[in-house]
């Protein structure tokens, strides 16, 4: 009885993770510019992958009696590396001049790079 309930709970965790992954793929199609797409791609997808890995870890730990340290390490590594990847994608896009969506509200970063370049070599 308890084991059946546990199986259902783990199944729900994995199902939620895959639904979140599917929704972030939908967001990748629907959203209009690079920055908004990177919101959907790097973060919601990370959450989905984390939930699926957690579900797999729980299943191995409770039903096959095998505590998989590799899954734990995988969770930690995905958690640490994905925000850096998202940050670098967005920053590279902004520095190479990819425009924001035309309905964006404000842009505090515009002009910051140009000013910095003039301060470094004022002859140009």
């Amino acid at each position, binding site marked *: 009885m308890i084991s059946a309930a546990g199986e259902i709970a783990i199944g729900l965790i994995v199902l939620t993770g895959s639904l979140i992954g599917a929704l972030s793929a939908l967001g990748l199609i*629907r959203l209009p510019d690079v920055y908004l797409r990177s919101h959907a791609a790097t973060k919601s997808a990370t959450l989905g992958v984390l939930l699926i890995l957690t579900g797999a870890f729980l299943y191995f730990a409770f039903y096959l009696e095998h505590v998989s340290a590799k899954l734990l390490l995988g969770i930690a590594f995905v958690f640490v590396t994905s925000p850096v990847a998202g940050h670098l994608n967005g920053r590279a896009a902004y520095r190479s001049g990819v425009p924001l969506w035309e309905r964006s509200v404000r842009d505090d970063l515009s002009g910051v790079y140009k000013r910095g370049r003039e301060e470094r070599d004022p002859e140009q």
Partner: protein
Amino acid sequence: MALQILLNFIIAFVWMFLFEDWSFSRFAVGYLLGIASIGLLSRFWPQGFYLRRLWAALKLLLLFAKELLLSSWAVMVHVMRPRLAVRPGIFALKTELKSDWEITLLSCLICLTPGTLTLDVARDGRILYIHAMDIEDAEELSEQIKGTFERAIMEVTR
């Protein structure tokens, strides 16, 4: 903090040497004794007892999990809505954090919460430029980040 943990391990090992018993339970008892003695003598350390900071780090982790679930739910709702109603934008956030390590932690946490993305950190490390999916009011959003993440990080590092 690292020194206190090292001292705690040394106390536990001394305890194991005293009994010539190399089991884990003896180590655990020695570690608890070390916690007690370091806690009693914590006024001799300039930065205070290390368990307090460990507790603050745990609270930061819980706070982060809460924010992650709440904001990812908000982003899901935005994506599923038939008409796209997001109002994206970039706003500058002045931060009071000083060291590189604290600023890296803050920008990683902002990157991981759905709906906000750190685009750049200013050269002097005082301003973070954040792309937000839905700026209702940038002041309010930055107050919210300051109130939650920045304060929790400060509690861990100082």
